[in-house]
């Protein structure tokens, strides 16, 4: 469904502090994939997600969606089929508006917004039902301003908003990193549920190796802007944390050896 071909992104290009964030990434995402993306800091995980979402256009290479090159498509155009949940729980909802107003905004994803009333009476039941599924009591707080909700509640709401109109791709960028352990677990359970129920193609960035192994059908590890591990299917199902770490160091050593050889050779 999504194809990245030699996708490249620099930061501060042509400057003294130029950084190669993504180095010619080749990646194919199939419909129904649930890909966990891990890697050390600065590996390029968030950059990859932002590249998919359209925050920037690639410096080199292509991104294809259903065969079409969408590299120059601005963020809001890609948002028609991409849903996002951010690391910052406050970033996915509008604090100044109410719960139902937020959901109403989400329900019009990709559609023309005109002069019809924003929050429609007939939608309220749908909102209530979906909120009930979250199990946070938000179904009784439709008229409350989102700014009054806790971080965890807002993140749950963001998840709901990103999926109320099922997107073709769901991007989760360390969406539990800023939450306390209990809430993080709740959100992860919610994540699993929503993705399973709606069969969403998902890319999830996480720092947590255990979660990465447990969730999804595919695991990708980034390092210095390159994909160094891509484990799927049976191999992933039987993967353990220790094995993952070992394979990482293995690759690392190979890489380091290469560079040492180049330096010393």
């Amino acid at each position, binding site marked *: 469904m999504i194809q990245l071909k030699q996708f490249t992104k620099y930061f501060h290009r042509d400057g003294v502090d130029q950084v190669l964030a993504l180095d010619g990434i080749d990646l194919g995402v199939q419909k129904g994939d649930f890909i966990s993306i891990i890697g050390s800091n600065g590996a390029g995980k968030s950059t990859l997600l932002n590249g998919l979402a359209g925050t920037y256009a690639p410096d080199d290479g292509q991104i294809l969606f259903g065969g079409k090159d969408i590299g120059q498509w601005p963020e809001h155009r890609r948002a028609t089929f991409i849903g996002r949940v951010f690391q910052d729980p406050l*970033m996915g909802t509008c604090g100044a508006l109410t719960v139902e107003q937020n959901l109403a905004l989400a329900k019009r994803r990709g*559609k023309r917004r005109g002069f019809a009333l924003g929050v429609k009476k007939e939608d309220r039941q749908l909102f209530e039902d979906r909120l009930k599924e979250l199990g946070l009591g938000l179904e009784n707080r439709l008229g409350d301003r989102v700014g009054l909700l806790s971080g965890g509640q807002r993140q749950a709401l963001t998840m709901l908003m990103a999926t109320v109109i099922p997107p073709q791709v769901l991007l989760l960028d360390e969406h539990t990193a800023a939450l306390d352990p209990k809430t993080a677990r709740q959100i992860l359970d919610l994540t699993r549920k929503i993705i399973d129920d709606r069969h969403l193609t998902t890319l999830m960035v996480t720092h947590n190796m255990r979660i990465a192994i447990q969730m999804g059908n595919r695991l990708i590890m980034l390092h210095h802007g390159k994909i160094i591990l891509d484990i799927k299917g049976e191999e992933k199902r039987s993967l353990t944390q220790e094995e993952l770490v070992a394979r990482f160091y293995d690759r690392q050593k190979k890489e380091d050896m290469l560079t040492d050889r180049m330096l010393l050779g």
Partner: protein
Amino acid sequence: MTWYAIIGALEQGLVYGIMVLGVYLTFRVLDFPDLTVDGSLPLGAAVSAVAITKGVDPFASILLAACAGFAAGMVTALLNTKLKILHLLASILTMIALYSINIRIMDGPNVSLLGASTVLDPFMAAGTAGYVVAPVMYGLLAVLITGGIVWFLHTELGQAMLATGDNPQMIRSLGVNTHHIIIIGVGLSNALVAVSGALVAQNQGASDVNMGIGTIIAGLASVILGETVFGSTGVTRTCIAVLLGSVLYRLAIAMALGLKLGNFAVTPSDLNLITALLVVLALMAPGIKRKFGGRAK
């Protein structure tokens, strides 16, 4: 302070109240500080005055003024979204350019409307005194326009506009082109300000190129005063609050002008200082409320 002075302040508060709604739209809803208003108020006045002297119906001239204001707002928004110029700077650029444009429109710095037909004529002909008709007429218009804005902000487009000002990243990830929203919003805001300018010109009998100086200050002071005194929970309440804030602001100014402490009398040149003090007081008020509210417990 005489009864007439109070009516006068009420009248001014209502007629400028439409401008204040425009300032609310950019400053609060879109989080876009917009100084274009110092230029679009006289723009509306100029367009309306010139149209009237050329025989256009006064009500139609107000629509023309609105279109001109919308165009001015669009220019500022385009400078900001397409050319990536900082919003404050973009609005200043448009404001400066409008000074020259307004003189061109009026073919001079001033167009007199004394004796020309205005929107008040149909009512004056009915025999009612002008100083009663004016506030009633402007009050009706202000209420209508406020109602229109409140309705608009509850539509899908309006909600997207509120979201753009509060969290542009979020609304973009829901598929909204925030550039378009800003263009529409800043355009609409300046259309309102231009309408206000057209009414002011018809009210005071002339359109003058310098009549816009200080508009943004009066607008901001009115918005802040209104929100502090009348509350700002929810869009409907806030819109009404800023309109009332405009009236309150003009009343405060009128009172200050009539104030005499012994030999010291407040003169109009002190107005800027008074406005600044008003705004500071209004901004301090929540803090004071909290401090004394807490003690009372």
